């Protein structure tokens, strides 16, 4: 209990410190990197509550991220106040999650993964067909553009996502989620309504993914309408959680820091082959650290005390 309190105080201190950053620097580069970091923490933590804690592998996070971005951007550009637009974006994602989740969450294993990925690819192609162009900000919004409010929006979304997800997974609801993940049939047998917990996790997950999308729509002066729907947004949160360690609360945070730095480094140094090298590193990470960076100490221990004798598989 004391440990936990200490952790919360520390987390609050970090958030406050981050809130003070704009008073010490005005370098745009720092802001934009931090904005991306906050975005990825939000997105990957929102994936983690469903994928890590509840065991449902959602490969369609881009659909919810994109939905949030699409709704928020359309409303905001049309003149609706931004805070309402972004909330509407989050709600849009939740509605999409209800439509997809009601049928899909009744299924197990492969189906949920394929189904959500299919939804994301369909959404990307459809948005690309209907809105093939670029979304520009109207002149008057362009004139007042500044990174500082964007920075705070991302920070607030991240803090809210971390807080809500932290308290959810550490509550009775969180126990239900973990029971669902560990053995769904056994949980049902002792009367756990696993569908309810999966749905709760999915709704929280999609809401924050939608908010992150809204932040993306607010951050960028111009982008292709379909850009927030591209599949990178499906796989990045999974990879981040994967790097940091699945089903742990700090995993997505650690993973995001590693990921954003690595990505930035590659983009700066590698040019056209950037994605090629990125793909290779991506594969090597998964092959050699199948349990993520958090599994690294256990892996080292295993190397030194090699005793396993199970073969054949």
């Amino acid at each position, binding site marked *: 209990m004391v440990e936990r309190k200490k952790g919360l105080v520390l987390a609050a201190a970090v958030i406050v410190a981050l809130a003070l950053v704009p008073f010490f620097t005005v370098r745009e580069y720092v802001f934009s990197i931090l904005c991306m970091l906050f975005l990825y923490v939000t997105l990957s933590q929102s994936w983690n509550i469903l994928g890590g804690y509840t065991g449902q592998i959602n490969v369609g996070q881009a659909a919810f991220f994109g939905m949030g971005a699409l709704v928020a951007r359309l409303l905001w550009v049309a003149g609706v106040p931004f805070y309402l637009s972004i909330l509407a974006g989050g709600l849009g994602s939740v509605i999409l999650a209800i439509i997809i989740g009601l049928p899909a969450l009744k299924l197990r294993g492969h189906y949920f993964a394929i189904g959500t990925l299919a939804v994301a690819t369909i959404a990307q192609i459809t948005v690309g067909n209907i809105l093939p162009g670029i979304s520009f900000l109207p002149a008057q919004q362009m004139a007042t553009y500044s990174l500082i409010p964007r920075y705070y929006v991302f920070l607030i979304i991240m803090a809210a996502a971390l807080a809500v997800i932290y308290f959810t997974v550490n509550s009775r609801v969180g126990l239900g989620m973990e029971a669902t993940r560990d053995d769904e049939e056994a949980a049902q047998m002792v009367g756990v309504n696993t569908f309810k917990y999966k749905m709760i996790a999915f709704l929280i997950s999609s809401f924050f993914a939608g908010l992150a999308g809204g932040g993306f729509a607010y951050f960028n002066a111009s982008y292709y309408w379909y850009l927030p729907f591209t599949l990178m947004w499906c796989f990045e949160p999974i990879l981040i959680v994967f790097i940091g360690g699945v089903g742990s609360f700090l995993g997505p945070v650690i993973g995001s820091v590693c990921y954003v730095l690595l990505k930035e480094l590659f983009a700066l140094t590698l040019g056209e082959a950037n994605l090629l090298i990125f793909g290779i590193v991506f594969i090597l990470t998964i092959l050699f650290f199948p349990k993520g960076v958090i599994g690294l100490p256990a892996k080292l221990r295993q190397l030194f005390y090699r*005793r*396993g*004798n*199970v*073969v*054949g598989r």
Partner: protein
Amino acid sequence: MLEITGIDVFHGDLQAVWDVSLIIEGKGITTLIGSNGSGKSTVLATIAGLLKPVRGSISFDGVRIDTLPAHKIVDAGIAMVPEGRRLFREMTVMDNLEMGAITKRARQMKNETMAWIFDVFPILKERARQRADTLSGGEQQMLAIGRSLMSQPRLLLVDELSLGLAPVVVQKISQTLDEINKTKGIGIFLVEQNVVMALELAETGHIIENGRIVGTGKASELLASDQVRQAYLGMEGE
């Protein structure tokens, strides 16, 4: 003759079998009895090659087999009827039998062997084109035995023959196993929790507790011994 010499076997980090040595005569019926979790199924899985011993060795008719992959052990003449039958559920009875005869030697004799198995278990012939998961528990066990016999083994390993079956069915199947042993000379190594059935069927018995062999003897003598009567049959010694 199967010769197990001082094997240690692990499940991951947990040691399940400690320094087990056994000699199983080629032509007879031998049983290994023990309670749940005593390590008896681990011994069987190690003979079949699903697990590898960390120490010790296993040889069959003078050929060392513990270094071979599982499918080569089938080739060497040892087949296993796995615990819980593990049929290919979506396949027909015929196809399940065909999967038993996958090694080159077995494939050449496939039709003859299948005819013999239909002779031994006539019910399988009637059900030949049915899916395996539509069979009753007893029929499934017959199919599992028949499937393993398709590989023309010289030694048949049977893991928990009686599991989940009615006593009448168990008796019938164990009689059939006895006949197969007597008429075809196929050795049988049976691992069982049902101690009475196992010791009545077998000639030789071994007792395993906590991963170690704690008793060996003629089956009939073991059945009468205080050790077995107290530990497994819940009877007081005389």
